[in-house]
């Protein structure tokens, strides 16, 4: 790998009372990711730096941050994909309240999930209480269940980030959560009215920013949100009913 032996990481330090970028120079080696650099700085220069992580393999979704302004997982961002002639900026996600350094308060996401009607199984197909379901019928919900809840899609969604509509819109993460429930052939629930009235699906204007940042490469907009919008339209905005209805 052709890169310098050292690089500068410009890390946001501070708490919700305020903060600033601090530059740290650290040694780098082949194959390193941003999280390695942050750990190295933490172990040798700034023991108290706050950073979340668990698996270091892109499977748990803990180490979300904004690297050179882009929402990414620190553990999956290789240094050889970044311009190391410039300082690499590492900041916390901006859509959520700041706690300290690279850590944000993501508890809103956990509260949002509570609002969505949980999985409700239909009657089993077999006497032993199990179901018979074809693989082709679960491929799509399985795609959404790859979600690691890193909340990068929430971070980048302008309805949340710029318009701050956290009370009215559940965000892309929970639209795919709802989509996997609605598309699960074993589920008997119906969340279409809730999607329209309480969960705010109408706010999404399909700019696909969420899809672009998804580390699991889930086609959030195309495969989940648009089909959900269609399902909602099918029940509540039927053009025939509209033609003969109240005119609205």
């Amino acid at each position: 790998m052709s890169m310098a032996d050292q690089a500068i990481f410009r890390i946001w330090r501070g708490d919700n009372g305020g903060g600033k970028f601090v530059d740290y120079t650290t040694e780098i080696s082949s194959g390193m990711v941003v999280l390695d650099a942050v750990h190295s700085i933490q172990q040798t220069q700034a023991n108290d730096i706050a950073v979340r992580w668990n698996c270091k393999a892109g499977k748990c979704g803990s180490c979300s941050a904004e690297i050179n302004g882009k929402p990414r997982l620190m553990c999956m961002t290789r240094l050889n994909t970044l311009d190391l002639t410039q300082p690499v900026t590492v900041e916390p996600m901006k859509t959520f309240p700041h706690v300290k350094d690279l850590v944000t308060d993501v508890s809103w996401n956990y509260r949002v999930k509570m609002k969505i009607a949980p999985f409700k199984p239909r009657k089993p197909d077999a006497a032993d209480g199990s179901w018979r379901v074809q693989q082709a019928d679960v491929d799509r919900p399985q795609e959404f269940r790859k979600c690691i809840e890193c909340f990068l899609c929430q971070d980048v969604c302008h309805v949340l980030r710029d318009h701050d509509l956290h009370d009215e819109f559940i965000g892309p993460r929970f639209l795919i959560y709802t989509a996997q429930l609605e598309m699960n052939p074993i589920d008997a629930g119906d969340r279409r009215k809730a999607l329209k009235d309480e969960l705010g699906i109408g706010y999404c204007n399909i700019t696909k920013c969420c899809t672009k940042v998804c580390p699991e490469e889930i086609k959030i907009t195309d495969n989940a949100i648009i089909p959900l919008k269609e399902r909602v339209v099918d029940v509540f905005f039927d053009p025939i009913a509209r033609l003969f209805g109240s005119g609205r």
Partner: protein
Amino acid sequence: MAEFPIHEYDVLVIGAGGAGLRAAIEASAAGCKTAVITKSLLGKAHTVMAEGGMAAAMGNVDDRDNWRVHFADTMRGGQYLNNCRMAELHAKEAPARVHELEAWGAIFDRTKDGRILQRNFGGHRYPRLAHVGDRTGLEMIRTLQDHGIHQGIDVYAEHTVLTLLMDGNRCAGAFGYDRERGRFKVFPAKAVVLATGGVGRAFKVTSNSWEYTADGQALAYKAGAALLDMEFVQFHPTGMVWPPSVKGILVTEGVRGEGGVLRNKDGKRFLFDDIPENYRSSTADNEDEGWRYTQGDKTARRPPELLTRDHVARCINREVKAGRGSPHGGVFLDIAWIKEKLPNSVEHIKKKLPSMYHQFKQLADLDITKEPMEVGPTTHYAMGGIQVDGDTQMSSVAGLFAAGECAAGLHGANRLGGNSLSDLLVFGKRAGEYAAKFAKENGAGKLDQGQVDAAAKTALAPFERGAAGENPFAVQNELQDLMQELVGIVRVEGEMQRAIEKINALRARAANAGITGNIEYNTGWHTALDLDNMLTISEMIALAALERKESRGGHFRDDYPEKNAEWGKYNLRIRQGADRQPQLERVPVVPLTEEMKQVIEENK
């Protein structure tokens, strides 16, 4: 106690991986006021990294499978040091636990006739692992999480437990702190379930996350509970070896289950040269038969790549030491070769092993559909842990239960892949059920303010030493180096004696750890507080490994390379003596009933 907030529960579960969540769901369903404490955010526990699947003899793919075969496989894999009662309950109850997950929203891969698909794994006679690609752990934790949040369970995310609170010999709750704000909290509880996972962070090369600092084992030990089988640590044969920053990250056994093969630098499938006697009759003796087995040919025997993990890991170690390894000190794991057999191999591999494809592509610039991976052993799992009653999961301390990796018994000397996720569900449920029962039958214990004050004082001491104290990360790194080097995959007496001396020296340094900065989300402080647990349990591992003078399962002694029948009669138990020193003793293994002897015999 007025100075710290008090949160009172019937059942307090420490740990929010598969076992902890399953225990909490059960306790809550029994009508108990229940809380879960987790060091991370909800849904991030190490269970999330489990890949291959959960073993349950449902017989969906091969109807010859049943609990009897699963029981016999588990005992054989554990080299008969298992708690046979746990192995029996596990084999019998795992199918119901898997079906229950589906009823809670899990979406497993399917068979052609629409049932839950099962795959081959090392040591399992038939395809037995219910799975979702290679992200089964994520499916499991998310299902339990999404079901659990609607069951009225309180979750304390990013909280660490510092000590268990004791009322005489009975557990009466726990004391800990909120990692985000650094505030102490008291959790009185009628029953406590430990579900904290393993010890992997005590080793340098590990597949385990930072959370695996032996908390449950150490909390239980200090509370007077007995630990069992601490010498048995599983080194998973296939961790990544390159680049250095990802060394140790797991490469699922599912790669081999799908037909992946292990080769040395000469291109030789070296596992064919060394098939243990007790597996010879069930192992393929040529490459073609091995391939047919992975493709579901019921007349074929399994390839040697699917022998138990302890054996495969040692063979890899031998190849590397003999100079027959890959460029970065591992061996080659090749799934790309199946293109000779399957025309659509690229799509097939991506579908069956999506996260492996991703992981190598992104972290190692390697396309596993085209090139072989380089892999080597990585510290993966602790078979040993807290000794529990096989039925109730209660430890030797009243009111203190343990489930999942932090408990001992089910796996004996070596765990079969896939038996961990099913372990979490089967014994998580049982721990929750019996903890709830205990809570109802016994009222609240009495709390002792002195214990709380002492724990708070110890926890804050690193701040007083400040920058003049030891860097906690440096102590942790040295521990990891020494455990890797001296108590790792191949062990000898002199090295382990040195390890114990070094651990004691590190303990003095850990007691002098110093911290700068404030108390809020201070990772240095959190690490300083983890050190004592890691050092305590590292010493237990070394002591037990030193004592067991034979090689069996995950424990390999270069100075005693053979299995010894006499040692096969005992488990090693460790308890804290009156002098506060660890007391090691041999205890007879749980005897097999006549019926279970029969089951083992008929499956030989």
